Structures are given as structure tokens and as C-alpha cells.
């Protein structure tokens, strides 16, 4: 090979060499986005291509919405570099968009178009959309009622549980009286009280609030207590030699040191209180998402049940997210906390 052709090869090879990795990285970064766009176009087409086997009014709108999502996914990922953090976020979630698009397509085809899944039990996506558009007021009322009940019961339970836990952990006398009661009543599932509670309380709403508070209070009490009890004596010694009074030891040493435990209790309490909330709404309270589920079942309105389940899951997940955010705020001093 002559010197000439070598330098010629290098000269012409250089741009090709740099173009190939560029293309590769472009495909890597935008390819998934394009795939997501294809998946959502497929979903849109699956909505519009065949006739529905049933009578649903939102099929057309759903198809259009799918195309809109496809366009957003396409431009969002291809032009991500110009869209700042929103573009980066979209690119990061692109693989999920692909999976969701495929899932929606399969769901649409298997229900609305060919009814491979038995129909009233497996409603198509458009019928769930229909619930959100046509039954919105009732659904919102239910959401509002559930949030109100849950929030009231949870806040009462968490506050009482926290105060009880600190008192038992701090004072031997309080522990002597409260501990046996706690051992006797605490492990009982709060739902076991349901029949009695609905008789003895003046309203089903107050009964449910009490039960949610009970379900929240037990884990919060136990974990706050164990948190306070496990605070190292060395911290108290340090504070005492620096002139701390008992109130300072409780408020500024015991409680902050126990806070990581308290949050574990708050998470556990949140989980068990959700369960109580739904059961209480199904059995006693004539409002809320639990009641909505029950009501939908009575009418064999399966789409409404799925719609309510989705809302419920968003609410529960939102509550957990909120609690995690509060914890991360209060416990910045901890290293290596779990991300939700």
C-alpha cells in the first residue's frame, strides 16, 4: 500500500469513523423512543381498524389520544437534547412507554375487538375511560370521602401512637400500665372490631375513624417505643453533662434519635389502615372508594371497578410517596435511605 493511498484512506475514513458512532449513539438514545412511538401508533390503529364487538363511545377518542402520545414520544425523545430535564426524563422512561404501548394494544385487541377474554369481566380500555368521563362526579365524591376518612383516622392514630410510644419508652410507670393493654389489644386485626364498632359508635363514620386510628396506632406505638428504648445511653450522658433537663432529653435527644423507627411504624400503619379503610367503606360507610367498588359489583359494572381500583392504587401510592418525601426531609442526616 502506497503512502498516498494510506493518507487518502485515512482522510476519507475519518468522517466515516466519526459518523458511525454518532449514528450508533443516536439510535441508542432515540431508538427506544421511536419504538415507543410505533407501539402507541399500533395501539391507536388497533382502536380504529376493527369494529368494536360491544357498544363503547370512547373508542375513537382513545385512538386519537394514542396517536397524540405516539407523536409526543417521537418528538420528545428525538429532540430530547433541546428539551432539558423533561426530555431526559422522557428518554429515561421510553422503555416503559414501549411496554405500555404493547400492553394496551394487546388489551384492546383481546377485549374490544375479538373478545378473547370473557367480556363483562375484562372490559376494554375505552370503557374504563368512559367511566372517568361519564361517572366523574360520583367517583370524585368517593375519592373525597375516602381521603377525608383516611386522613382523619390516620392523623389521630399516628399522633396518639407516637405520644403513647414516647411515654412508654420514657416512663416506667406508664409502661407498667400501658404495655399489657398494648400486648392484649394491639395484635388483634382492627377489622375484627368492625361489628362491635358499628354498634357502639354514634355513626359509622366515627366508628371507621376509630378503627383506622387503631390500625395506625398499634405499629406506630410499638416502633416509637422501641425507638425511644434503643437510644444509646451515651447520648443522654453527653446531654446531661452539658446541662440538659429531662424535657430536653425527651424532646431533643430521645425523639430525634427514635425518628427513623417512628417512620417505619408510620409506614406499617399506613399499610394496615388502607386495608381497614376499604373494608369499613364496603361494610359500613356508605361513601368512599370501597363503597364505590361494592356498588359497582352490585351492578356488575366491571369497568367501574377497574377504574376505581386504578384510582385507589394511585391514591395509596401517592400517600406512601408523600410519607417518604416527609421522611427524607426530616432524616437528611441519615445516609443510604431507601428511595421509593
Amino acid at each position, binding site marked *: 500500500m502506497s503512502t498516498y493511498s494510506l493518507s487518502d484512506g485515512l482522510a476519507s475514513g475519518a468522517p466515516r469513523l466519526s459518523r458511525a458512532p454518532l449514528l450508533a449513539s443516536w439510535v441508542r438514545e432515540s431508538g427506544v423512543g421511536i419504538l415507543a412511538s410505533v407501539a402507541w401508533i399500533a395501539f391507536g390503529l388497533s382502536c380504529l381498524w376493527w369494529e368494536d364487538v360491544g357498544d363503547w363511545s370512547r373508542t375513537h377518542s382513545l385512538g386519537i389520544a394514542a396517536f397524540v402520545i405516539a407523536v409526543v414520544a417521537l418528538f420528545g425523545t428525538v429532540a430530547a437534547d433541546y428539551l432539558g430535564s423533561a426530555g431526559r426524563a422522557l428518554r429515561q422512561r421510553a422503555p416503559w412507554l414501549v411496554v405500555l404501548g404493547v400492553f394496551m394494544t394487546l388489551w384492546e385487541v383481546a377485549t374490544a375487538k375479538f373478545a378473547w377474554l370473557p367480556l363483562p369481566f375484562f372490559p376494554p380500555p375505552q370503557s374504563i375511560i368512559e367511566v372517568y368521563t361519564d361517572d366523574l362526579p360520583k367517583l370524585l365524591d368517593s375519592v373525597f370521602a375516602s381521603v377525608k376518612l383516611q386522613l382523619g383516622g390516620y392523623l389521630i392514630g399516628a399522633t396518639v401512637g407516637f405520644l403513647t410510644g414516647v411515654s412508654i419508652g420514657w416512663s416506667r410507670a406508664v409502661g407498667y400500665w400501658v404495655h399489657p393493654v398494648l400486648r392484649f389489644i394491639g395484635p388483634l386485626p382492627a377489622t375484627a372490631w368492625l361489628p362491635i364498632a358499628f354498634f357502639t359508635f354514634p355513626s359509622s363514620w366515627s366508628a371507621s375513624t376509630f378503627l383506622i386510628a387503631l390500625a395506625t396506632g398499634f405499629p406506630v406505638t410499638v416502633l416509637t417505643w422501641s425507638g425511644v428504648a434503643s437510644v444509646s445511653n*451515651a447520648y443522654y450522658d453527653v446531654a446531661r453533662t452539658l446541662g440538659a433537663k429531662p424535657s430536653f432529653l425527651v424532646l431533643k435527644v430521645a425523639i430525634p434519635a427514635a425518628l427513623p423507627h417512628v417512620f417505619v411504624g408510620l409506614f406499617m400503619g399506613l399499610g394496615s389502615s388502607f386495608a381497614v379503610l376499604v373494608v369499613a367503606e364496603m361494610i359500613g360507610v356508605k361513601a368512599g372508594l370501597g363503597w364505590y367498588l361494592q356498588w359497582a359489583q352490585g351492578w356488575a359494572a366491571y369497568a367501574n371497578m377497574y377504574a376505581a381500583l386504578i384510582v385507589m392504587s394511585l391514591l395509596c401510592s401517592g400517600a406512601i410517596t408523600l410519607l417518604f418525601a416527609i421522611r427524607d426531609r426530616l432524616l437528611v442526616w441519615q445516609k443510604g435511605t431507601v428511595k421509593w
Partner: protein
Amino acid sequence: MVAATALAEIDAHPAAGAALDIEQVSHAFDIDGAELPVLSDVSLSVEPGEFVALLGPSGCGKSTLLRLVAGLDKPRSGTLREDEARITRPHPSRVVVFQDPTLFPWRTVWDNVALGLEAQGILKSQRHRVDAALDLVGLSSFRNAYPHQLSGGMAQRVALARALVNDPKILILDEPLGKLDSLTRITMQAELVSLWQRKGFTTLLVTHDAEEALVLANRVIVFSDRPARVKADIRVDRPYPRHRGDPYLADLRRQILGLLGLDATW
């Protein structure tokens, strides 16, 4: 490392040392019903502003004695006095620096140092003292850091600042440098001496290192095995700064190690 302005700030609140009298103190612990005698008839008189090092075999009762001086525990018999007043409970005029820094992990460095003033309810008007104490140990730039972000030496310096900000009359140090690497240790020994010389507090230092005791202290008390008795009370009449190679100190060191039963191995 020591900022002049910081020292001036701290010197604005002079705290001369207090006298400490330990009179025939004995102490014991109950372990599974059996009595474990830990201190046996310990008497010790410390002059205001003296720097006393306590040496003794591990587990002999040195930390127990310091806890009694701090007022964290009460002796089974005997009395302890600070400037004639009987010690019955902790007081910020007697501050302890423990072997572990025991910083509060949920508080920033600044808030840790502010602990004493906050507990005494005087932080609002005395915030400058916290800044000064942090300057003094050279950690002003870490005021907003959390303890888990500090090295061992830095954490121990924060613990020292947390003690000094209270202007103690008696500073009680329980092997505060024991876990540090030798370089940090030597630096902190020098800082400790200069602080003590400027502020004049009485110092009780427990250490397991005879050399450290001799470089720092006016007086070295050697304890026996558990239950601890005062075995020897040695004056160290040497000006500061002291040199580790000083033959006078080397001689004392040999003598002390002999008392501790280590003649052959020094």
C-alpha cells in the same frame, strides 16, 4: 489552625479552673447479684488549673471515676467536691469528652457544638460562642456538615468544641485521642496544651499512653488493678512545649511502666 480572633472571643468569658477534691471514694457495681468492687478508697486533691493524667490497667475503674467526677453516677461511699461544693449531679462546669465523639447524628456540626448552650437556654444570646469554638478547632467550614460526613479526627475535634463552648471549670477527657491516628493525635495533643494554657481550666485526662500523659500533664496518677487504688502520684516538673525525647520524661516513663508491671517490655 487556631484563629486569633476566635481565642479573643473565648477569652472574653474567662473560666478559671476549679479545685477538685476526691475524698475516700469507693464504688462497686452489681453484676448478676455479685458485687464487683471498682474503686477502693481513692483520694485525690487537684489544684485549680492543674492538668492531671490518670493511668492504669484497662478495666481498673478510670472511666468509672470520671463518671463520678462528672456527677453522672453517685459513689457508694466517699465524697467528691468541686470548689468545696459537693458533686451530686452533672453540671456544665464539668464537661466530659468521651472516647467516642458521640456526636448527635441528626444535628449538624454547628448544632452539635451549640448543644450545651441550647440545653441551658442561653443559645439565643450566645451564638457567637459557638462560632468561636468551631474556629478554635478549625472546623468553621464544616459547620453545616452532618457527623457522618466527618473523619474520626474531625469528629473528635467537634466533640472538643462542644465541651469547650461551655467554658468548663473542669474538663474531663476519657481517652479522647485513643482512636486517632498518631499524626492527628500529636497535633491534637499540642492543641489541647495550648487551649489549657490559655484558658486555665482544670483538666483530668484518662489515657492508656504513658508518653501522652507525660507530654501533657503536670501530674500523673497511676492506678492499681481493679479495684483501682492510687498507686503513685508523680509530678512532672517540665516546661511546655515538651519534647518526646526529653531524657527526664524518658526516665519517668520507665518508672511509670514499671508501676504498671511492664518493666521488661518498654
